């Protein structure tokens, strides 16, 4: 049998999948197995499928996804730590016809940026917030995040998070769902193909809401892994996430069309 070369395999007629043109060719800086990459891709796929790339402006946070602007092939701004919802507000208020979204980690969105998060949600800014909750500060080397579970070890909770000394994990998604300014609030995951499809549908709904001028923030939490910060193999991290994160952060819609479910 003749050898098949790589060139033959990737002939146009053999292609079964190509990445969206809204992802650049830059190699992702994320650890292998990290959920950030998948979340980036499906967000960009949605924007492409909805034909919104020419009117969308994204906001990158400070966190592992600080370089999101290197990977997402659309206009992007990089915000100071925690301030992405304020930056998004600034853009959306002066360009109401544009599509504006922020992409933020849990430290960024729910610790240093809680104020901006709550107030953008409470004002009902017509933006999309994509929130990657991995229960840790990945970027800075695995410190405790506001979302770190009780008993979970991190470099600043080396004996496990202790509620009395360090406070409780914050369910900011449930919290913003209570605010009149949120229109769609959901919690999803991207660790299995089925979850990826569901999350992509949720992200699509979020962007459609904004495109159609539905009043308020569409807020998509993605419970994700951080194998480096959790000090686990990618597989173990996903199992650990299912067994520990999902019971505390249950997946599913929390608020749809402005009504709590």
């Amino acid at each position, binding site marked *: 049998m003749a050898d098949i070369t790589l060139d033959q395999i990737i002939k146009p007629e053999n292609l079964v999948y190509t990445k969206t043109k809204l992802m650049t060719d830059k190699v992702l800086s994320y650890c292998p197995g990290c959920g950030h990459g998948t979340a980036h891709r499906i967000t960009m796929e949605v924007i492409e499928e909805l034909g919104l790339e020419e009117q969308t402006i994204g906001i990158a946070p*400070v966190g592992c996804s*600080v370089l999101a602007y290197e990977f997402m092939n659309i206009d992007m701004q*990089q915000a*100071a*730590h*925690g301030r992405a919802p304020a930056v998004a507000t600034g853009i959306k208020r002066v360009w109401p016809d544009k599509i504006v979204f922020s992409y933020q980690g849990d430290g960024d969105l729910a*610790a*240093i940026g*809680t104020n901006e998060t709550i107030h953008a949600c409470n004002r009902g800014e017509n933006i999309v917030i994509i929130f990657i909750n991995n229960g840790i*500060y990945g970027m*800075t*080397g695995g*410190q*405790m995040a*506001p979302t770190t579970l009780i008993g979970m070890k991190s*470099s*600043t*909770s*080396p*004996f496990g998070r202790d509620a009395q*000394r*360090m406070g409780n994990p914050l369910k900011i998604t449930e919290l913003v769902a209570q605010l009149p300014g949120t229109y769609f609030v959901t919690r999803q995951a991207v660790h299995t193909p089925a979850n990826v499809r569901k999350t992509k549908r949720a992200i699509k709904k979020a962007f459609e809401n904004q495109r159609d001028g539905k009043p308020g923030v569409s807020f998509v939490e993605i419970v994700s892994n951080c194998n480096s910060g959790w000090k686990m193999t990618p597989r173990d991290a996903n199992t650990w996430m299912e067994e520990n994160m999902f019971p505390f952060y249950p997946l599913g819609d929390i608020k749809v069309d402005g009504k709590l479910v």
Partner: protein
Amino acid sequence: MSELKLMKGNEALAEAAIRAGADAYFGYPITPQSEVIEYLMAEKPHERTGMVVLQAESEIAAINMVYGAAGAGKKVMTSSSSPGISLKQEGISYIAGAELPCLYANVVRGGPGLGTIQPSQADYFQSTKGGGHGDYRQIVLAPASVQEMADFVKDGFELAFKYRIPVLILSDGVIGQMMEKVELFDPIPRLTDAEIYEKYPWATTGKKSGTERRIITSLDLDSHKMEEHNHKLQAKYKEITEKEVRYELIDCDDAEYIIVAYGSSARIAQKAVRLARAKGIKVGLFRLITLFPFPSVKMHEMCGKGIKGFLAVEMSSGQMVEDVRLAVNGCSKVAHFGRYGGIVHTPEEVLEALEQKIIGG
């Protein structure tokens, strides 16, 4: 007995805080100083001395926790790196205005903006010329070794309480991340509540009957009173300028040229001095230890004694050099050399700058 250890600068700072009898540390992670809070969390100071350690939700929260605890008479500190220190500036201005003692550390990284996490000295202006709003000063200590990272915690707290002023330990990624031998000072017990009541009659600890109540504030809507308060602050800064200047002179006795540097730049400059001396160039190192107060008097005196030129070496585009120029005040040549944006200059580059900008130029 003092203890000999191999530690990172950040760890030495944290250990020194426990040993200095600090009552509390409030912080937020940021590279290259996250080891401070990581070390404190791992050491369980609440068991060792009763010291409180809390990871705040932001640097803004952390500095305001410091304000509260300091106003209540406690020995309290925080630390961060450049972007986080910028966030703390409002709080530091309040602390200066309310005349509270506190210690904080900036392990500087390259900027502006999110910048880089590599070492820099570009926060000199922010540290010595205000940083926050209003006419205030703070004492700035610049450690050049892991040993000084530890020692300046003790000294810093003493100065902070002596003058009721914020004291800043200004270091950078080199000093924070490197490990060196350090001799740790003996632990100082934390003050008891009774001692705090007695020593700090200004602290809010609960109004006892028959005593005046105490208010911690930086507000005075009466401009005349505000000016008076400013006079009082300025008198304090003048006293500090007269009494608390610290520096180290290395190979300066027979020097014709002087390199002025602080922190990690001073370490590199010291090697440059050695290289220059090997070539027969008579150069010495004026290492700043306090950046505010600045050793202007000594520097001016030296240039009167025949120094032909001063080279200010710093990891910035030229900030400290302005204070050198003010001190020298035209009586000798002054030039600047420094790499920046996270690049650390080499001793060879410093020597070349000395030869070109001072000796040749």
